[in-house]
């Protein structure tokens, strides 16, 4: 916990929850795509959806989630009928992180190879992940 708060100072006093153990098998993009079996990234050694450019850009991440039925949306506020994912990017525009919104309106993130946590969107902003840059949504399946 202390380690996470030193990495992400926004977590301090925020009431975030650690919801898994560390696991190198999957990362934030995989977790946002509900896949805990692969490490997703547009590089040579990672899983990446077929037909999507293997380039480290927000556009490539958006295209990867569009393959899963997501479409661009205007904001990160909770809409009950939709699931949302948020993309974070560094100041130079390189994507750094993806979080998945929970029905509560909080967000679930896998922190690299570290734990999954539940947090507020703004809590992970800072030196490591930059800031929230983009959002996509898809209709929430019945029962979720």
């Amino acid at each position, binding site marked *: 916990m202390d380690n996470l708060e030193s*990495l992400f100072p926004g977590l301090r006093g925020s009431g975030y929850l650690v919801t898994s153990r*560390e696991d*190198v098998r999957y990362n934030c993009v995989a977790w946002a795509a509900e896949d805990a079996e692969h490490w997703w*990234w547009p*590089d040579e*050694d*990672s899983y*990446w959806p077929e037909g999507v450019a293997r380039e480290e850009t927000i556009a490539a991440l958006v295209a990867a989630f569009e393959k899963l039925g997501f479409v661009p949306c205007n904001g990160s506020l909770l809409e009950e009928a939709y699931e949302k994912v948020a993309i974070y990017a560094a100041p130079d525009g390189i994507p750094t992180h*993806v979080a998945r919104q929970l029905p509560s309106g909080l967000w679930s993130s896998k922190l*690299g190879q570290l734990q999954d946590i539940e947090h507020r969107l703004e809590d992970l902003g800072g030196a490591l992940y930059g800031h929230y840059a983009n959002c996509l949504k898809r209709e929430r399946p019945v029962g979720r």
Partner: protein
Amino acid sequence: MSQAKTEPSSAEPSHQAQSPLLKGPDLERRFRELVSEWRAEVAPLSSSTARVQHPAYRAIIALGPAVVPLLLRELEQRPNHWFAALRSLTGADPVPLADRGRIGAMTEAWVTWGKEHGYL
């Protein structure tokens, strides 16, 4: 073994200075230092690009082919993103395309390769 890339320009000076001539216990000690540094600093990163561009990772590659057995043992014991380093140092790529992103399967492919080639 023919494709060793060193790319020393991406490593910090402190990483470069000791790299080329290390052998035996000195090599292993330096390798362990760099692995510890790398693991600690890339743990929260999801970008595998950033992970393999980290100066400590580049410095491990700059240690040269002698580090391959250490890398394979590290991978076997604590699977992680050592695949780009192993490719760079050996010129081999035993991971089927269909297994990209499956850390366990990629590790298994490299460990099998290491055993077949006498590294493990």
